[in-house]
């Protein structure tokens, strides 16, 4: 059978899922491919490609979505300062956190905090993990690519205005 969308060996997929679960459980930790590959018991070279094929995103980008998701939840549900949330969710600096957060969600942590608090009331009885998963950012392109596209749009808008 070819390695199409469903062609991967279920035994391998189950082991890849274990690596995904480990990132879910501790997204604030450092997850180099070597560590993930060990969890899935596959070679490093094999891991990144197999993970991407199985879950549609490269492992590091998946980790990023989980961190943003968790940061968004902390912004909504706690009064922790943004700096504290940045460190708790695995970022080395507030600057990197703010930049990536804005790139992924299109808004600043502070603005997301204000908006999600207003909307949170309605979801009360749904199990929290499912609410959280539903609000996971859908990051289908790399953050750098998303940034480039926004920049290009910005430039072209400005370009149009300046045209006679």
């Amino acid at each position: 059978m070819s390695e199409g969308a469903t062609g991967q060996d279920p035994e391998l997929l189950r082991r890849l899922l274990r690596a995904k679960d480990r990132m879910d459980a501790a997204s604030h930790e450092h997850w180099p491919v070597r560590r993930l590959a060990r969890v899935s018991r596959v070679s490093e070279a094999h891991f990144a490609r197999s993970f991407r094929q199985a879950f549609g995103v490269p492992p590091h980008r998946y980790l990023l979505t989980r961190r943003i998701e968790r940061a968004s939840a902390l912004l909504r549900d706690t009064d922790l300062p943004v700096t504290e949330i940045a460190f708790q969710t695995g970022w080395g600096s507030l600057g990197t956190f703010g930049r990536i957060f804005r790139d992924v969600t299109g808004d600043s942590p502070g603005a997301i905090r204000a908006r999600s608090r207003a909307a949170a009331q309605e979801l009360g009885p749904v199990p929290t993990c499912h609410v959280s998963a539903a609000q996971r950012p859908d990051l289908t392109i790399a953050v750098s690519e998303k940034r480039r596209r926004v920049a290009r749009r910005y430039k072209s808008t400005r370009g149009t205005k300046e045209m006679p």
Partner: protein
Amino acid sequence: MTQGVQVVGLYVRDQDEALAFYAGKLGFRVHMDVKNGDFRWLTVQHPDQPSFQLGLFVPGPPVLDAATAQTVRAMVAKGAMPPLVLVVDDCRAACDRMRAQGVEFTQEPVDRYGTVDAGFRDPSGNGWKMLQARR
């Protein structure tokens, strides 16, 4: 109860393995285990909830063709099946008990929203949330 949901099925990769998990480790009881050729109707029930059966089914012929079965097996192994929620009296105690049995936890018990929840998977990849009942 005369009306309501009676059986909800899960797809598993191996029925013997699933039975060992749900009956042996989680404490469910076998409700029905009937074979007809390659087809095996296997349902288990929670001891506190005799009106509801959890079906443990293997995707395959004669119900599904080989290619569809392969897709379903892949989905289960990727954890892509819908959420399942188990309610327990004491999440931490249940966690300790299940962990001692070798259950694979995906999330440690967390106190939040006035209750405690944890996450685990069955051997096939079906994901469960374990919630402590609010009192």
